């Protein structure tokens, strides 16, 4: 189910929050209603952690993560790093990396299996992404934009990309990522998808300016309508038992 909300009159929800299948990070300093909407939706399924990164509230754009790990930029303070290590589940590897392009949320787009990276990313960073996040990394552009993390939102079930992505690009990316992709907008025509929304396998949060059409596109491409957190867990359980046998 997709929810619409605002952070202090600002519809760029993906800037102030980061949602994955294992945890959710929320910026401090917003009104309690922002935080409580996340809490209500995510309840006891995953922890909702209030944090800042480098003293700023734009945490969604500064960090990149999935259920396996979380990558933080070099300007994250030690207290923030410690706080995150304490609050997140033990299965999540929290790592601070030295990378010139420090807005990791803008340069990396990832789900639990694949990641798209900025073309100028360091080789070391690429290896770290593959290690910490447990994904396969592809250097790509989206509609000619190198900030892949800004112009697409990915989950394990689908992805939403910049509206001006050509059909060939869509097909190519879809093959790489192995998920269905759709070119669309969020927040009433905004092309910066990842800034306007944040998504995981069973829920999404969009800015309150998002129109009903955009919302229905989001719900259909990310397959949110039937999704329940327990369904995901059950699926995982089935596959685990299979492989054990």
């Amino acid at each position: 189910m997709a929810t619409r909300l605002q952070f202090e009159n600002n519809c760029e929800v993906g800037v102030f929050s980061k949602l994955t299948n294992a945890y959710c990070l929320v910026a401090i300093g917003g009104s309690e209603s922002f935080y409580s909407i996340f809490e209500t939706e995510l309840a006891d399924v995953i922890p909702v952690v209030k944090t800042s990164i480098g003293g700023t509230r734009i945490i969604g754009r500064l960090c990149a993560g999935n259920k396996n790990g979380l990558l933080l930029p070099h300007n994250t303070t030690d207290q923030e790093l410690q706080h995150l290590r304490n609050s997140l589940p033990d299965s999540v590897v929290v790592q601070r990396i030295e990378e010139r392009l420090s807005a990791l949320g803008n340069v990396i787009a990832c789900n639990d299996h694949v990641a798209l990276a900025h073309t100028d990313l360091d080789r070391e960073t690429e290896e770290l992404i593959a290690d910490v996040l447990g994904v396969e990394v592809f250097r790509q552009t989206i509609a000619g934009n190198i900030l892949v993390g800004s112009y697409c939102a990915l989950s394990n079930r689908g992805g939403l990309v910049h509206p001006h992505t050509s059909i060939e690009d869509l097909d190519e990316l879809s093959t790489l990522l192995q998920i269905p992709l759709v070119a669309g907008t969020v927040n009433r025509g905004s092309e910066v998808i990842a800034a306007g929304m944040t998504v995981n396998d069973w829920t999404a949060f969009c800015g309150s300016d998002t129109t009903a059409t955009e919302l229905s596109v989001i719900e259909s491409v990310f397959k949110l309508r039937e999704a329940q957190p327990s369904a995901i867990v059950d699926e995982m359980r089935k596959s685990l038992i299979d492989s054990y046998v």
Partner: protein
Amino acid sequence: MAPTAKRPRRKLVARPVTFSPFARSAAHIASAYMIKRQMIENKLHEFCQLTPNGECKCNDKRNIDETESDSDGESSEGVVQADFAFFDPKPDDFHGVKTLLQTFLDNKEWNLSGFVDLILEQTTVGTVAKLEDDDDDGLFSVVTALNLGRYKDHKCMKELEDYVLSVCHESNLVDQLRVLFSKKARDVGLLVSQRVVNLPAQLLPPLYDALFDEVSWAVEDEPTEQLRNSFRFKTYLIVTKIYMHKKANGKLGEKADSEEEPVIYVKAEDELFHELKNYVSMGLVMAVEADKIPTFRKQLRSLIDDEP
């Protein structure tokens, strides 16, 4: 009686390229860069002329004597031309207007999108100022007048009313304000005027002229009797920001210099509104009688023309 001057109409220039979504996006990026550059480079010495089809053309010429803020080291010989044009509000202007009105009610979380929608729907009264060429979507200023009675059922207007009444610290004035919002609402227009901070002041007289002319045209031209009456404003309500000296018990007092005047107006025209009697609060919310408007227009023109 049809007005002799045409109200500002959009120029219909055939530009097939800009109809493609790609071009719009490219233009958006280019315009953001261009606007930023012009914001940095615009120095205020210009003329304004009203062209025959009701648009205002302002020519920006850099004052060659001003060398103080040449921070990027460019020679001050360059002349920066900026032609501003006024348009009716369109649904596409949503993001621009919303950005300008972000701090309209300080930090309160309210239905700003709904409020912007109201402004954009009212195409007969209301003006946005953009750059001349169609490629730009950058909005520099918005002015409009919304009838309180006509829109009072909208959630955003209710939130606005609650907020304005709650921040008013003087109890006697609160009652007057409340009356304005309820009984007299049909005759009260909310004057919304926001612009980018360093917009050339020479644009102001034509901008306000455009607004008040549209109001008077609407009184004659609107299709239904009810709509016509909704523009017969007796009072304008203005919500704005000022800097009030700390010692004068101001809420927004920022400057502590004792040589400073007691009140500093962020927008120059607010000072004129303030003097024209009948204001209701500490300079944050003002109710101005509609018949004082012609005086305001004259004063504004002379204020801007006299400024160096």
